[in-house]
């Protein structure tokens, strides 16, 4: 182990520029993941808040028989996506409207407002597609006049989240690929600079694993440092946004740790590829 560390430090001293470059690219790759990850995380949280209010309102035709209504309520609450169905009478609707819009107290009249059913969906079934699907099923009842559900901006939030997620993954992967190549090149320079040592090691009977280990540790450590740097950058960005724009949440420690570890794995991958190639050739 002592030998290994000495060799890692030697490698850094021999090619400080490339070493820095590999750490920085890994940091940027993970920073891209991190920023978009934060966006997804926070949009998701906002969506959950909105979703809790998502409900489908089915306005019923005048004169619908109470038996038909309760039969429909039974049917609808049996839908697997549905959490609850409430009937709202014109009187209740009027009271609510007056409470919400006190200026127009006198304008409202019970006869304006049709009776309705309010349908709440279970958590996990509040995405636009499911809402639309359930809405369509409710619409098939002949006595249902009109169905309304969550506004367009729910869908918009979903789109933002999905686009941000995809962009984050694409950009992060691109950076990660670049990082693997750069770290592979760095390690290869070190391997070449030490090819004499390596050939002697193999001559006296060192195993491939032993020859490979210091390079793998080198790559892994550079990756970890890059990961930590990315975490710091992401945290800094989050801090700035949180304090200047809107309140946001940060990754929990487990996810942050996985991200840093991801850097280590990128580094490991890069060096494994380049050392493997060298050893197989010799």
């Amino acid at each position, binding site marked *: 182990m002592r030998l290994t560390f000495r060799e890692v430090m030697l490698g850094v001293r021999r090619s400080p520029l490339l070493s820095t470059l590999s750490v920085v690219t890994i940091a940027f790759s993970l920073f891209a993941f991190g920023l978009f990850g934060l966006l997804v995380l926070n949009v998701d949280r906002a969506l959950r808040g909105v979703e809790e209010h998502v409900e489908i309102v089915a306005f019923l035709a005048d004169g619908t028989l109470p038996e038909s209504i309760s039969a429909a309520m039974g049917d609808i609450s049996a839908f697997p996506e549905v959490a609850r169905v409430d009937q709202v009478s014109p009187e209740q609707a009027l009271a609510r409207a007056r409470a919400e819009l006190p200026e127009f107290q006198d304008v409202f009249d019970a006869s304006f407002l049709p009776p309705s059913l309010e349908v709440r969906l279970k958590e996990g079934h509040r995405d636009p597609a499911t809402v639309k699907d359930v809405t369509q099923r409710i619409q098939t009842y002949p006595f249902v006049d009109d169905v309304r559900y969550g506004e367009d901006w729910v869908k918009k939030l979903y789109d933002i989240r999905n686009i941000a997620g995809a962009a984050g993954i694409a950009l992060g992967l691109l950076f990660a690929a670049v990082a693997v190549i750069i770290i592979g090149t760095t390690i290869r320079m070190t391997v070449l600079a030490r090819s*004499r040592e390596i050939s*002697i090691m*193999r*001559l*006296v009977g060192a195993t*491939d694993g032993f020859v490979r280990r210091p390079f793998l540790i080198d790559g892994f450590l550079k990756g970890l440092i890059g990961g930590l740097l990315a975490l710091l950058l992401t945290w800094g960005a989050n801090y700035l946004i949180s304090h200047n724009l809107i309140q946001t949440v940060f990754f929990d420690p487990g996810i942050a740790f996985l991200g840093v570890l991801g850097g280590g794995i990128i580094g490991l991958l890069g060096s494994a590829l380049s050392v493997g190639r060298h050893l197989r050739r010799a």
Partner: protein
Amino acid sequence: MIRFSHVVKEYPRTGLALNDVTFRVNKGEFAFLTGPSGAGKSTILRLVIVEERPTAGEVRVSGSLTSGLPRGEIPRLRRRIGVVFQDFRLLEDRTAEENIAFALEVTGAPREGIPARVSRLLTQVGLASKGTSYPKELSGGEQQRVAIARALVNDPVLLVADEPTGNLDDRATRGVFQLLRDINAAGTAVLMATHNLELVKRNTYRVIEVNRGQLVFDSADGNGGAATVTSSTPA
């Protein structure tokens, strides 16, 4: 110890380097490998240390058939073989001691035992006082002794030497050669490729001669003795 049977070695670009070579070297034996430049001596040694594998035929070293030997098994075999080259192959940024210790470290020897083992080896090769010198600060003969000490770290059953005296003057040659004889006397088989016919003639060790990839003479086959080295070797 070493057993070549009908070995053919073809290199991708230069073609046939060995053609139907058959010989064996026994446990504890000392054998010279001679022949003109390009004859295939180094190729034979590279086949022995499994740096190359035969194109056809069989190479057996210390009981292992090298053609079928998995990559992962090569290190174990190499630890039983010491190797020495004309150009010493020492690490310039390490002292004599460190060069020897390096071979122990990288083959996973227990750390505590290394210093004692290194100093014993230095004494054995006659360099007890030069342990902290860098290769630059040593003469050719001394550098080769360090390389030999390094080759001995794992008590090899076989020492393979490719022109170990090729870069040395007469005096250093004699010293290094005497060291190889001592090592052989202690039970290690030695296969030594050399151009130095004086050295070959002055000794009665076995001589295997190759020319253009073929074995043209083996003193163990015929009337024995190094004095009868064949035509291609000037008198």
